[in-house]
Each structure stands twice: as structure tokens, then as C-alpha cells.
């Protein structure tokens, strides 16, 4: 039994090594469904989305159109961020979605733009720098304790 196991194992290892060696240098990458959707001609897209509930479909189409209207560099930038986001662990992704929702729900409308600016700045800092900036008189003046805490959490969870 042990001999048989060893033979099988060696065979498998040999096979795997041969497989790796023989792999093509650049394996074909499977495009993300979003990429597929973007590449589709309008009538193809229409056919694919036909069976979706109308509100969801409308939302998707609006978002696709918004992306299409963006400048190429902006598209590249946002896609890069999305790709980094998708590489985060599912629980981290979920945490950021939750925080973003909280940001939209709890940050007063008048402060939201400033919050977005602060977030962009905080993301570029290390934890120590963030702490310093968030503790500054200027930030304390503009944001409540809860709002600053939310910004800190978001900055920590944002993808590059």
C-alpha cells in the first residue's frame, strides 16, 4: 500500500512539474464580466441585460455610460483602484462598503465634499501622519469626533 502511494505521488509530482514547464509563457487571462460588458456592442449589451429588473438595469446602464464618458486617464485610474479593491480580502471589501455607506448616510451633506478631500489626503499618509492631521485644530474644527473617526477608518481601508 505504501509503495503504491509513493508511486502515485511521484507520478503526480512528475506530471505537475512537466505541466508547469510546458505552460505557455503568457496564459490567456479571462476578462472580468465587467470588461466583457464594456466591450459589447450596444445591441449585444441590450440583449444580455434584457432580463434584468428594470431599476437595476437602468442603474447599470447609467453607470456604464458614465464610465464611457470619462477621460481615458480617469478610466485607467478608477479601474486601477477597482482592481486593487477587488484584490482585498472579501471581509475588507465588505468593511469598506459598509464605511462608505455610513459616510453617505451620516456625514452632513454640507461636509461631504470636504470629507472626500480629507479622505484623499489621509489616504496618502502613514498611520502616524493620519493621527497627527486628524488631531489638528483645523480638522477638529471642521469634523466631529465621530466624523474624524469615520475618516480614519475609511482611510485605513481604502485601496491604493
Amino acid at each position, binding site marked *: 500500500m505504501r509503495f503504491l*502511494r509513493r508511486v*502515485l*505521488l511521484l*507520478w*503526480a*509530482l512528475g*506530471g*505537475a512539474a*512537466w*505541466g*508547469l514547464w*510546458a*505552460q*505557455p509563457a*503568457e496564459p*490567456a*487571462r479571462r*476578462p*472580468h*464580466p*465587467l470588461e*466583457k*460588458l464594456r*466591450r*459589447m456592442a450596444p445591441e*449585444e449589451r441590450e440583449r*444580455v*441585460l434584457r432580463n*434584468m429588473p428594470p431599476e*437595476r438595469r437602468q442603474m*447599470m446602464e447609467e*453607470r*456604464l455610460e458614465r*464610465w464611457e464618458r*470619462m*477621460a481615458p*486617464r*480617469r478610466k485607467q*485610474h*478608477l*479601474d486601477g*483602484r*477597482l482592481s486593487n*479593491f*477587488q484584490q482585498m480580502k*472579501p471581509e475588507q*471589501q465588505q468593511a*469598506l*462598503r459598509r464605511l*462608505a455607506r455610513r*459616510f*453617505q448616510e451620516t456625514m452632513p451633506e454640507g461636509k461631504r*465634499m470636504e470629507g*472626500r*478631500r480629507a*479622505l*484623499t489626503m489621509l489616504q496618502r499618509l502613514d498611520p502616524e501622519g493620519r493621527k497627527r492631521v486628524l488631531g489638528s485644530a483645523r480638522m477638529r474644527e471642521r469634523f466631529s469626533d465621530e466624523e474624524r473617526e469615520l475618516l480614519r477608518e*475609511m482611510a485605513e481601508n*481604502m*485601496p491604493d
Partner: protein
Amino acid sequence: MKNTKGSACPMERGEEEILLRYCAGTLAAEGAGPLDEHVESCPRCRPWVREQRAVWQALESWKVEPVTAEFDAALLARIAREEEARPLWRRWWDRAKGAWGAALDWRVAVPAGAMALLLVVGLTMENPFRQEAGETMVKLEAREIEQAERALEDLEMLRQLEPPEEEQKL
């Protein structure tokens, strides 16, 4: 010193838990019957029971709205996404483990898995149906549409967290 052990009063016996069950209606009928009479006449138990019933009633008034209709769809889509992200062998392994339980021993599974791997590697290399990168694919399964939808949602979230200046810059 008063002997409380033989007392009929749960409060005196330090057994308020009985009164709690009495108020919750989970005390068996044979226990609840004699307690009815006692509670009526006991100056310690009566107010306790009245207050506990008030709490019970107050908690009962707290109704929660029904679950949103999208809950199941969102959960099943998440499960589908997770399944999609898991390697094929892992999905196969869990399924087999679920079906065969402990009978599936690693000593059988490792060589079998290795053989399957060999087969997959071989087929991948020689697969005449493999699609070339860049080739347009027009078919999208329902699950893929959900993935695209989620990606668009995430993209929108990331966009909305950036200030408009970023848009100007790029």
C-alpha cells in the same frame, strides 16, 4: 433568624428565576397554579411580577419591520461570487467531503487529486477550444452579470469617495 428554605415565597428563597419563568409563561401549569395565589397575596412578589410584566409588555411593543426583498438575492449573489472565486479543486473537495464525510481520507484524496491535476494540466495545454486573449465574448451568464453589477457598484463607491478635483486632474 428566619428559615427561608421552606418558604413558599420564591423571593425569600432567592429563586427569582421561578418568577421570571412565571411571567414569561414558561412555568409548567402545576408550578404556576400555586404561584398565582401566592403572588396575589405576597407584598414582595406582587410588585416584582407587576414590574416584570410591564417590561415584558414594553419589549413586546418593539416590532421590527419585515426583511427587505433584496436580502436573499444579495446573499445568494455573494455566495455565487465566493464560489466563483474559490479554486475548482476546493469546490470539488468540499462537495465530496459533504457527501462522503469521514470516508474521504487524505491518503486517497492526495493521489486522486494529483492525478486529476495531471489531467487538468494536460487538457489545459492541449485544449483546442481555449479562447485567445482579447477575443470578444458576447455570452454572459446571470452570475457574471451580477459580478459586473457589483463591480460597477464598487466603482461608483470609489468614484464617490474622491473629490471632483481628481476628475479635473485626470
